[in-house]
């Protein structure tokens, strides 16, 4: 597990060695606030809560998270540094987890930097800080889920643009898995239990329930298993490359 930490630190430092980190954080903060104030009508509603702030997170992440995850493996493969990394005495899992945690920690940092919003609502009124904390945790889990999907998409290609597009599409499908847009594609041919299973995979349903302030074990389990599944898929994709 020590290697996970070493790989994570290197990866995290590499975000800040390029403008990527700063551009990402800046855009994330700008959009998160713009959506809350303009689309969410923060002042007009006259309520001291962050409901509309979190409402936009799944949509904001849909494009911003694949922008972080697209480089995870595609860049290593393109530059050939994956050969250097995988010939060090580290396991594939340590590398997959190390890089994933770096990306997640980075997303967490961006999220933490939205704290002025929290200060603002506390200044303006008396919000339910428990609900806000739950929503922050939900948002972090959501980012983790998107990142696991993005990591898998990045492992499939050595082209970052393709990794980005695959990431957005895959995240979109999982995000809206409970909605007709996605479910109709399955209804015509799949059995009902399968359609129900797909429906229960939706990011949005699980995020919504946490956002309301209820952290249910089932929701935690959902995000944990979804992340584990896509990280496993990541390592299988990388392993297949090696055997091929």
């Amino acid at each position, binding site marked *: 597990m020590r290697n996970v930490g*070493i790989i994570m630190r290197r990866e995290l430092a590499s975000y800040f060695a390029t403008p990527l980190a700063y551009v990402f954080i800046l855009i994330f903060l700008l959009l998160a606030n713009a959506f809350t104030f303009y689309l969410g009508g923060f002042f007009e509603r006259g309520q001291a809560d962050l409901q509309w702030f979190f409402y936009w997170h799944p949509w904001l992440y849909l494009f911003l998270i694949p922008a972080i995850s697209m480089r995870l493996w595609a860049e290593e493969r393109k*530059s050939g540094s994956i050969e250097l990394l*995988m*010939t060090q005495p580290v396991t594939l899992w340590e590398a997959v987890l190390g890089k994933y945690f770096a990306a997640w920690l980075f997303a967490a940092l961006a999220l933490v930097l939205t704290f002025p919003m929290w200060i603002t609502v506390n200044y303006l009124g008396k919000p339910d800080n428990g609900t806000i904390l739950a929503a922050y945790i939900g948002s972090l889990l959501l980012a983790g889920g998107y990142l696991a999907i993005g990591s898998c998409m990045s492992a499939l290609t050595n082209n970052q643009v393709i990794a980005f597009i695959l990431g957005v599409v895959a995240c979109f499908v999982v995000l809206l898995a409970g909605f007709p847009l996605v479910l109709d594609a399955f209804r015509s041919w799949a059995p009902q239990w399968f359609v129900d299973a797909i429906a229960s995979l939706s990011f949005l349903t699980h995020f919504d329930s946490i956002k309301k302030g209820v952290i249910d074990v089932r929701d935690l389990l959902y995000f944990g298993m979804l992340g584990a599944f896509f990280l496993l898929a990541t390592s299988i994709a990388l392993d297949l490359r090696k*055997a091929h």
Partner: protein
Amino acid sequence: MIKTEHLSKRYDSLVAVDDVSFQVAPGEVLGFLGPNGAGKTTTMRMLAGFVTPTAGKASICGHDIATEPLLAKASLGYLPEGAPTYGEMTVRRFLEFIADLRRLEGDRRRARLDYVIGRLQLSRVLDQTIETLSKGFRRRVGLAQAIVHDPPVLILDEPTDGLDPNQKHEVRTLINEMARDKIIVISTHILEEVDAVCSRAIIIARGRIVADDTPLALEAKSRYYNAVTLQLEQADQLEAARAAVAALPAVAEVEVSVRDARLTALPRAGATILTTVSELAVRQGLKLKELHLESGRLDEVFRTITA
């Protein structure tokens, strides 16, 4: 000890490496030669654990690459083809990262880092990012990460590619120094390098081993082995000299280069002709600029067996 048994790698219909078996013992520097696409890099990648073999086995210091990959990798220093690194990192941070993964700690970590930085002359560029460095420096950073943990086995894919003659010489000196107690495998298509550093050479073509011998023994297979080359003062003596040399019974063939008034007499198999050719030159009154014995040309052997 490196040991491979019937190592093979197939990509769909393409056979990249076909039934390769060899052993390398400590103290040996094995040169891996072959045309581009012959399977050198694939073989090295399999040994380093980056590519999974389709068939066959390989072990490094007794650790099978399939069943004990971490132990095999821990005994190995590996320079991948093209010396890929993380371009956005500084040389210092990159080497520290590798030292961490290699479990170097405390005084030993500091000593080993100092050693490789000094040995590969990286101190001037320590705080530059790797992507800003010249090709030669990048190669040296790649070499530094391969030897930082002082591994018993080194596999270096084209270690001197992109270096200038001075740097090439430096790297060869380094390899020769390390050769005493390590196992070193290098791939190269610079044939002079084989003479300079290798105690043994394997020539590989279309995925198969076609020759496995010392560089000297390989050179002895050359038509030029024990051939004698004369360079004349005056080109007008060339035709007469050619006829006289060709008439010698031990001479199989004479090659003439009119441009620099040079002729090369190739001996019949096993014959030595230096004495007879030099006596002939005196008898004929040839004015010589140069007379020398060829040791055999590796490039010619290489072309003959890989064509």
